[in-house]
């Protein structure tokens, strides 16, 4: 992935963090589909967190030696048919599905369109439909971290509130009542909207995980809140970085 100049304090923080050298060896794949928008930002977030991003192309048939995968946001295949529905059948997706379900439990994060792809892949339950107000919405959104034991949330405190950008049209999370009850009972509601539900999602759900906690999907965009001065004005502006440092610490911890 093309090297971009790094701006802001986050660089120094990541480079000086304890164990930074070990983290840099960790490789995090970022998938690009036709119509993906946020792959560069996701790769940059990976680098700012201290790891090495690896470009993954949707038509590829191998994940190489990546330690985790981010499926970024955008409009894969123009959202034709249903958001994420065509991307779900890309050759690389079957590799990701197998790796996520394998004993090694590859950590997978789906952001926005990536979340939609994960539900279409049945790695996560439920589905997203059009926002209840029918409009595209872009705003800084407060979320509560409801579960800090997943592969992607270990660096947050349980109940911590973070602000990250949200931008979507098909963001209304829905599932049947039985599925919603099960998600709640198993602690698999990982993020909830705070103060304002931007799309009519059931039970204010912003993000969920699979049973093992290695697969997490959410509609808002942590990768856009990783650099001081370039993220939301509310809070530190870098409150999304924890996703990427969390998975790194998990990877490094697992390889001790």
């Amino acid at each position: 992935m093309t090297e971009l100049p790094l701006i802001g304090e986050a660089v120094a923080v990541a480079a000086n963090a304890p164990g930074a050298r070990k983290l840099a060896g960790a490789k995090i794949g970022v998938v690009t589909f036709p119509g993906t928008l946020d792959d560069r930002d996701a790769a940059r977030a990976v680098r700012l967190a201290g790891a090495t991003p690896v470009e993954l192309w949707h038509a590829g048939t191998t994940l190489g030696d990546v330690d985790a995968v981010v499926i970024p946001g955008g409009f894969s295949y123009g959202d034709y048919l249903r958001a994420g529905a065509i991307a779900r059948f890309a050759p690389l997706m079957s590799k990701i599905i197998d790796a996520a379900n394998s004993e090694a439990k590859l950590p997978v994060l789906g952001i926005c369109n990536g979340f939609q792809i994960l539900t279409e892949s049945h790695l996560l339950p439920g589905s997203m439909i059009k926002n209840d107000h029918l409009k595209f919405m872009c705003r800084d959104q407060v979320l509560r971290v409801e579960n800090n034991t997943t592969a992607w949330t270990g660096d947050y405190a349980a109940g911590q509130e973070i602000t990250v950008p949200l931008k979507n049209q098909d963001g209304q999370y829905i599932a049947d009542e039985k599925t919603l009850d099960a998600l709640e009972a198993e602690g698999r509601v990982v993020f909830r909207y705070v103060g304002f539900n931007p799309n009519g999602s059931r039970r204010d759900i912003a993000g969920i995980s699979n049973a093992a906690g290695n697969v997490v999907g959410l509609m808002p965009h942590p990768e856009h809140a990783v650099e001081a001065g370039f993220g939301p004005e509310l809070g530190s502006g870098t409150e999304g970085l924890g996703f990427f440092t969390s998975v790194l610490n998990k990877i490094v911890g697992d390889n001790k």
Partner: protein
Amino acid sequence: MPRIVVDVMPKPEILDPQGKAIVGALPRLGFTAFSSVRQGKRFELTVDGEVTEEILAQARDAAETLLSNPVIEDVVNVEVVEA
């Protein structure tokens, strides 16, 4: 050439935001008889040659795997339409 028509509708228990917007617009145009609208999708699959049972089975399979998402939608109709 024959076509296989597949109709997909949002599940009855799922609120259909697009249908809701349409039902709101209808009375503004004087169409006052309709109390509810649900919006679905129609797919037309063209077949080169005869539609065999095997091809029809493929269409049903495609309807369940790709053309619809069983979490939010039902396949309500799969039928052959001769050209």
